[in-house]
């Protein structure tokens, strides 16, 4: 297989685009496509300060790398959840972020250490509470969303960027369609606008890349990322949905892309206009972040909840 641009041996082929590229032209294509997505969806401009949520995985480190290459003022945010589970998962992922930043003069980052700030790690909080018992991923999402909003606001950032790729988005859409969660479907987009002072503007510059494309970029450019999944993600519904979508993709290349881009097209045509109603939000009495019910937000209630029986 030859590179379409230069005819040298290709290292990566994208069946859905009928495009194979070499060691030199694949990273170039990837960076250019990211720049195009940022522009197409009006995500941010060179004047904006961008906070990139980094986990130590391929997607977020690749995103940080590309944004820095493109000249954006992009700082990292690592949230240390204290996941050990016998494999030292958080310590290993944090080390990847630190190594990444140490190798780049312009890569600055903030660490939020959940245990140090709130007195418990994610697994400890999950075990204590009714919400988290047996499903730490629910508490994990809550903690991460809160920390990302907080640091975006307190650090004076204009926008929060996450490394969600097309497979992530297609799996979420698949789950929401299966359960006809029309409100969630209506809100799923490459850009989530800010809401008052409490909720940061969120963007997903990699939302048009397949997961294998971000992995290929990381491997080709030598980004050292954590290969292992979070120990709690094993058997997660979203991973099961990704597997189903990948089986369909195997038979018919482009299936995942059509599924997700079809959603974006339908939104543009106004299909979800009636569903995307504004939810009334109130500032949390403790932290000030916006929440759907008056009083304390779910995050602040989490830390005050008595141990579940």
């Amino acid at each position, binding site marked *: 297989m030859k590179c379409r641009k230069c005819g040298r041996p290709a290292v990566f082929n994208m069946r859905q685009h009928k495009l194979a590229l070499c060691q030199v032209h694949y990273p170039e294509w990837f960076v250019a496509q990211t720049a195009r997505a940022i522009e197409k969806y009006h995500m941010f401009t060179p004047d904006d300060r961008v906070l990139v949520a980094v986990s130590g995985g391929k997607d977020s480190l690749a995103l940080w790398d590309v944004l820095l290459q493109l000249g954006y003022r992009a700082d990292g945010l690592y949230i240390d959840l204290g996941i050990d589970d016998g494999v030292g998962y958080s310590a290993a992922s944090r080390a990847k972020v630190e190594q990444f930043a140490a190798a780049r003069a312009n890569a600055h980052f903030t660490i939020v250490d959940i245990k140090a700030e709130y007195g418990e790690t994610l697994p400890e909080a999950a075990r204590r509470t009714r919400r988290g018992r047996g499903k730490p991923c629910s508490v994990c999402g809550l903690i991460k969303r809160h920390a990302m909003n907080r640091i975006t606001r307190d650090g004076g950032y204009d926008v929060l960027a996450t490394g969600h790729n097309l497979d992530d988005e297609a799996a979420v859409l698949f789950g929401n369609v299966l359960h006809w969660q029309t409100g969630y479907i209506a809100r799923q987009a490459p850009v989530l606008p800010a809401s008052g002072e409490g909720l940061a503007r969120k963007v997903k510059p990699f939302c048009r890349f397949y997961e*294998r494309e971000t992995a290929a970029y990381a491997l*080709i450019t030598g980004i050292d990322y954590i290969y292992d999944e979070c120990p709690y*993600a094993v058997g997660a519904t979203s991973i099961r949905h990704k*597997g189903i979508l990948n089986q369909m993709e*195997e038979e018919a290349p482009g299936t995942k892309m059509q599924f997700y881009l079809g959603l974006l097209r339908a939104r543009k045509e106004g299909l979800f206009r009636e569903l995307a109603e504004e939810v009334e939000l109130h500032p949390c009495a403790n932290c000030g972040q916006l929440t759907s019910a008056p009083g304390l937000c779910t995050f602040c209630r989490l830390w005050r909840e008595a141990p579940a029986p």
Partner: protein
Amino acid sequence: MKITYRDQEWELEGRWRVRDAIKEVGLLPQTVLAVRDGKLLTEDTLLDENDEIKLVAVISGG
């Protein structure tokens, strides 16, 4: 050839194309990348009998 994926390992006899070798060990080509000597391989690459191939999972998240 030797193929490794996470903590699993297989030996395949003869020459295989990357795509067929991935299917032979029971994985979906869409879900892994094949690496030989640190270099990424396209799915049509014909592997040698003595090659050592590492398969890298591309799926993450939860």
